[in-house]
């Protein structure tokens, strides 16, 4: 029976990739472990190894094909004694992926949170009319922000694990080493507590470090320096010694990496005076807010999201596109209910809004963008109009950002509320590994829709 070779997933969040080249040709003998092709994603180039022995019977996806979905059959391997006549249906490009052989069959059974971002609302109003827009991924937008700020200010440098020669564990720092050299793009040992402290020390001395954590999960080892050394020094020094530093990296759940690698730190850092906390959703905001964060004289926690890195959006082509920290954005206007989200929570919120619109429910979706300082005014103004509020976050419910928003709205718009503020959040459990449980642990579009209907008493 001929064996299909499927487009592999190279990371927990990969959904498609490019078939860069074939290293074996049709008719070549292959044995287990042979490299048969090279696959590119926006993050990495990887080799595809044969798992089975036989002959490469047919190449289904030619070299150079882009955006090949994970699990698409890319070739067929014929076993001993089989020949081209046996290819049969196995060679049909549209054939469904083989459950048994697919390296990422779980991913298909329970898709990772969608990377296909819903339409992103119009960019910043401050962009002059007629500005040319370019489509960038969030990953590219972040990279461009760092590169622009490094060109602008020699005191800005980037440090972290794999940021230089490896080009970034998630390829966010791609090309920076080549442009700026090893003095300003610095690979650190795996030593989060240590390099966070080194970064803060350099910032106290007046430099402007951008410290990348491979993920914020690992920043727990460094949280003492983030809070005790970075956030508090200006106050403890009576305003003498500031700390202009950005701590950035992916935050929150990726996909199928379980409890220690799937945690949302939004609430943790937003608790701390002296820190600013930014969590963008769109590519334009990723760029404009990271530039603002690097220029900010305070320590800024810049929470990215791995799921969003590959999503694209329109970014204004301006020499200096800076989005102010502390301003929420109304992503879509509506009359009936206010939905507040940020980062990947916006994915659920916008999809829910699309669904609700079909039922005649107009949700006003606010992308909070900055968690600290929080733009309470924009939320309250909206609630005064809609009289109903749902918050959406991937973090845990207790003492979460949603809880904080609910408290502020209760304090500042109590008389305007026609229903209790309702929170949609990650469930109150460590993140499970099993695909079905993970899906249950995360918020969903259905959760948001249900919450909206609840506050509308429908």
């Amino acid at each position, binding site marked *: 029976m001929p064996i299909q070779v499927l487009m592999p997933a190279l990371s927990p969040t990969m959904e498609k990739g490019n078939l860069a080249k074939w290293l074996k040709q049709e008719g070549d003998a292959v044995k287990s472990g042979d490299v048969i092709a090279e696959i590119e994603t926006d993050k990495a180039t990887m080799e595809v190894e044969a798992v089975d022995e036989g002959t490469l019977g047919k190449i289904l996806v030619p070299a150079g094909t882009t955006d090949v979905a994970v699990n698409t059959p890319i070739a067929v391997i014929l076993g001993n004694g089989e020949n081209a006549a046996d290819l049969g249906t196995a060679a049909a490009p549209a054939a469904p992926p083989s459950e048994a052989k697919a390296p990422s069959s779980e991913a298909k059974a329970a898709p990772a949170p969608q990377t296909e971002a819903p339409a992103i609302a119009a960019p910043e109003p401050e962009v002059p009319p007629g500005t040319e827009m370019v489509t960038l991924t969030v990953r590219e937008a972040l990279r461009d922000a760092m590169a622009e700020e490094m060109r602008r200010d020699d005191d800005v440098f980037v440090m972290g694990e794999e940021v230089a020669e490896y080009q970034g564990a998630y390829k966010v720092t791609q090309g920076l080493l080549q442009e700026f050299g090893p003095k300003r793009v610095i690979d650190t*040992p795996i030593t989060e*507590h240590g*390099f*966070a402290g080194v970064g803060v020390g350099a910032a106290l001395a007046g430099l402007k470090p951008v410290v990348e954590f491979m993920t914020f999960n690992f920043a727990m080892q460094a949280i003492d320096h983030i809070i005790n*050394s970075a956030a508090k*020094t200006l106050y403890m020094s009576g305003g003498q*010694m500031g700390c202009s530093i950005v701590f950035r990296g992916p935050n929150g759940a990726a996909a199928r990496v379980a409890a220690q690698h799937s945690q949302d730190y939004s609430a943790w850092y937003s608790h701390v005076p002296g820190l600013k906390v930014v969590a963008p959703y769109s590519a334009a905001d990723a760029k404009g807010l990271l530039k603002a964060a690097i220029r900010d004289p305070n320590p800024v926690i810049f929470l990215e999201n791995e799921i969003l890195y590959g999503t694209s959006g329109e970014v204004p082509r301006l020499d200096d596109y800076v989005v102010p920290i502390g301003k929420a954005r109304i992503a879509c206007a509506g009359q009936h209910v206010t939905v507040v989200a940020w980062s990947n929570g916006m994915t659920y919120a916008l999809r829910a809004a699309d669904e609700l619109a079909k039922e005649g429910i107009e949700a006003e979706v606010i992308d909070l963008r900055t968690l600290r300082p929080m733009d309470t005014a924009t939320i309250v103004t909206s609630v005064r109009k809609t009289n109903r509020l749902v918050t959406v976050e991937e973090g845990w419910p207790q003492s979460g950002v949603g809880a904080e928003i609910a408290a502020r709205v209760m304090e500042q718009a109590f008389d305007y509320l026609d229903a209790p503020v309702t929170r949609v959040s990650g469930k109150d459990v460590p993140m499970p590994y099993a695909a079905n449980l993970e899906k249950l642990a995360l918020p969903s579009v259905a959760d948001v829709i249900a919450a909206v209907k609840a506050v509308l008493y429908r």
Partner: protein
Amino acid sequence: MATNKKSAARAPAPASEQTPAAVPAFTREEELAAYRQMLLIRRFEEKAGQLYGMGLIGGFCHLYIGQEAVVVGMQMALKDGDQIITGYRDHGHMLASGMDASGVMAELTGRRGGYSKGKGGSMHMFSMAKNFFGGHGIVGAQVALGTGLGFANQYRGNDAVAVAYFGDGAANQGQVYESFNMAELWKLPVIYVIENNRYAMGTAVTRASAQADFSRRGVSFNIPGEQVDGMDVRAVRAAGDRATKWCREGNGPIILEMQTYRYRGHSMSDPAKYRSREEVEKVRHEQDPIEQVRARLLEKKWVGEDDLKKIDAEVRDIVNRSADFASSDPEPDPAELYTDVYR
């Protein structure tokens, strides 16, 4: 990072592998300067202890009495632009780096004229003007931060050296070794001064440290180190001279273990039951850093008793004025509660 030089054959470590040479002598002026500085720290700390007893100073207050030769000797080896960072036993470091006694004392009493406007207290004071980077309350934090100061020097291409002071207790923190690794890997100009005063709070070095020779704590990173008589200001200064030279020549970090002793408890609330009165008295009588200088000055007839009394009086005057200021200066304006959180 920038320097990708493969570590070629290392220059021999400074003094650790040499036989301890005779301690280089000080000139009369150097002896007098050291005497005056050490005395200022001692009298200041005694006064701080008094004010604490009177309830004028709150919270934690860690006195430096007994260890004066360490910061004073090191300071004599530094030059303008070198940075200093330390932990919570920091009053001596601030005075040695030239910070004003009244500003320090007023911070201890939580007054608006304190270095941090009363918002930092004993453990958290800073001076941009004097390159004093704190004053850090988390044990060992200053080691990584100080490494970052050295990083900034290298990044800027200046020849300044960062001096990170920490105790024998902090030397057991993990981030110390993370810092050692990066400092040597990147050849950062950092002097790690380990002030071994024999007790981490109430725990004797031998009860907490598998390797109690702290000069060897950098061995696995190839960081040279030496043990120094931290009660002899001349020995400290000579070690400081060697260390600054080592760093300024681009050799990377170096460790100086200063063997010293604190006469008082860990903090004001420590009854120091973990050691005998005799042990403390023995050090005081045989090794006191100030008495050593005083004896040399008199022995060489560089000064008479009256000259020293005059210095004592001047120092007491500075300290008394600082105490007066720290007692009379108003507390911070309530509006200061919300300032300096952000820039």
